[in-house]
């Protein structure tokens, strides 16, 4: 929700709860070099008495940020009679509302939580709205750990810009809100740049993968089970040639299909059901000697943009790269080698 959207929603809510004989007008926000307030509401009683609310809009508000904002407002209002602070927000938690009550500051949020007080003219309206944040994601994203974030990074990396957020959402099936949050994070990290209209102008996709690898980890972000293929990885490849079920090879075995470095020691497969897959492939559970990892993935996106190579279904290079970067031993180096290949062969994997 943008600040403007929050403001519009709050205006409508106030209009809706005011007694019919009261009047509500919105003043122009103070336009000065040092922006003072976001908006200005005037409420007029039937007796033509008015109260002016100086409005501060918070797209998202924590109790801490509210205390700060109120102190700021009070400072601005010092010596100005007949003007009261009002805090408008997308959502105010119960705690935030308590803080505002204690400070005797009127508030309204876009979900319908509202408290308007004034002594002259006398006014007291209190309404309860949502008790849970319907847009919990409005806080700026700090990590790419989550499933949605992973999907969004894949979409941004795999798709050649420019594109608008909605357009990318339609093309990749990733929620626009999720994309926006990830784009914001990557923009803060100077990995994504935007055009004048807010669309994505450019993506440093290698940077995005490296940034993702700080928060994502193949072996922690997914459900991993270890197995032994006693006949070796070549035999495993043969078995995978004709299977009718869904899987995607990642890590070293996959990287070899693009940028061979050294023979793979460990096969890593994304599958829907590890136990069932192990049974179908004749893999053994073992306490020592592991050469196959079956991974139930963080998200279905690992099965998207797979490629067929040497009879194997291989995960998208972008997925393979991030998986390698977060792996043990020489895998990160193999990840960098794959990124080199991706740089030289962008047409092969990006569209």
């Amino acid at each position: 929700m943008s600040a403007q959207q929050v403001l519009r929603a709050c205006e409508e809510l106030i209009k809706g709860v005011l007694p019919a004989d009261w009047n509500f007008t919105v003043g122009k926000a103070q336009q000065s070099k040092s922006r003072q307030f976001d908006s200005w509401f005037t409420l007029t009683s039937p007796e033509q008495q008015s109260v002016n609310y100086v409005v501060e809009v918070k797209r998202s508000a924590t109790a801490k940020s509210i205390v700060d904002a109120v102190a700021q407002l009070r400072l601005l209002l010092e010596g100005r009679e007949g003007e009261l602070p009002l805090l408008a927000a997308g959502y105010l938690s119960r705690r935030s509302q308590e803080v505002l009550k204690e400070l005797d500051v009127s508030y309204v949020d876009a979900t319908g939580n509202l408290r308007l007080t004034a002594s002259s003219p006398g006014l007291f309206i209190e309404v309860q709205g949502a008790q849970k944040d319907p847009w919990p994601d409005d806080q700026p994203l700090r990590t790419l750990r989550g499933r949605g974030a992973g999907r969004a990074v894949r979409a941004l990396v795999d798709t050649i810009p420019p594109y608008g957020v909605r357009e990318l959402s339609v093309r990749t099936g990733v929620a626009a809100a999720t994309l926006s949050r990830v784009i914001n994070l990557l923009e803060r990290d100077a990995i994504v740049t935007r055009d004048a209209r807010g669309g994505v102008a450019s993506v440093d996709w290698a940077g995005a993968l490296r940034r993702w690898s700080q928060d994502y980890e193949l072996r922690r972000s997914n459900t991993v089970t270890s197995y032994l293929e006693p006949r070796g990885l070549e035999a495993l490849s043969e078995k995978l040639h004709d299977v009718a079920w869904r899987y995607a090879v990642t890590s070293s075995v996959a990287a070899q299909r693009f940028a061979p470095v050294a023979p793979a020691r460990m096969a890593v497969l994304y599958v829907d059901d590890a136990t069932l897959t192990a049974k179908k492939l004749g893999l053994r559970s073992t306490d020592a000697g592991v050469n196959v990892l079956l991974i139930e993935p963080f998200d279905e996106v690992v099965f998207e943009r797979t490629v067929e190579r040497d009879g194997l279904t291989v995960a998208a290079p972008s997925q393979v790269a991030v998986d390698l970067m977060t792996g043990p031993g020489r895998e990160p180096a193999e990840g960098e080698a794959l990124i080199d290949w991706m740089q030289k062969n962008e047409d092969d994997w990006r569209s």
Partner: protein
Amino acid sequence: MKMTGDPDPLYVTARAALLDTLDALRKHHDALVLVGAQAVYVHTGTTTLSVAEYTTDADFCIVPDLLADSPLLADRLLANGYEIGAYPGSWISPRGITVDLMVPEALAGAGSQGARLGPHGNRAARRAKGLEASLLDRQRTVITALEPSDERSVEIWVAGPSALLIAKIHEINERLDSPDRLSDKDALDVFRLLQSVSTITLSNRLNELRTSGLAGDVTTQAIDILPTLFGTRDSPGTRMAVRAAGEQSLDAIIGASFVVLVQDLVDELAI
């Protein structure tokens, strides 16, 4: 998940020496069965494991009944530049590759080292335990040179995987008290055979062999020895294979895989 590429140069030379020997012994092809490491590689191919420790010997099993009286083995080999090696049956090819001619112990007549081969004498080939099965489990296979410039190609008998397994088990077992790198390599060959050939194929053939008159004893003995040599990760044979592979990062995987494959075979043979 194989790394394809050019074969190891040593392997190329070994194959060339093998073909040299077949050229020299052209009249005796029907009496020869390829055994040993080169036969193992016919079945396993070059797997993901390193081939640097490759055993370059060309080993042949001789079927005495089918061996013609002339030309003499020794004459043909000496005429082609081969030198007499340290033991009976051991020849050094002009390329420096050792060629071993062996006769299954059950058919080698009296004596302790040299096989009794009538007009061919007692030093052309040596007796070896465990090769009996290669006269029964064998297949005609075309052997080609690995060098592009070498166009030679010969169809000969090559011992089957089960026969090779039996021979290797006896070989390792006999040298168990004085293990060396060669034994380690043999153990790795056993592992490669178990990895490459399905358990059911091996067990079916082993079951046939253990009821045969010629190879019954050596087969039964080999099956009995198998778990002693390779039953656990700490068994002597398992440790040899791990050592031969020489890749520390693969130690646990090779050990665990070997044990699983041996157990599978033992279970299948018990049915």
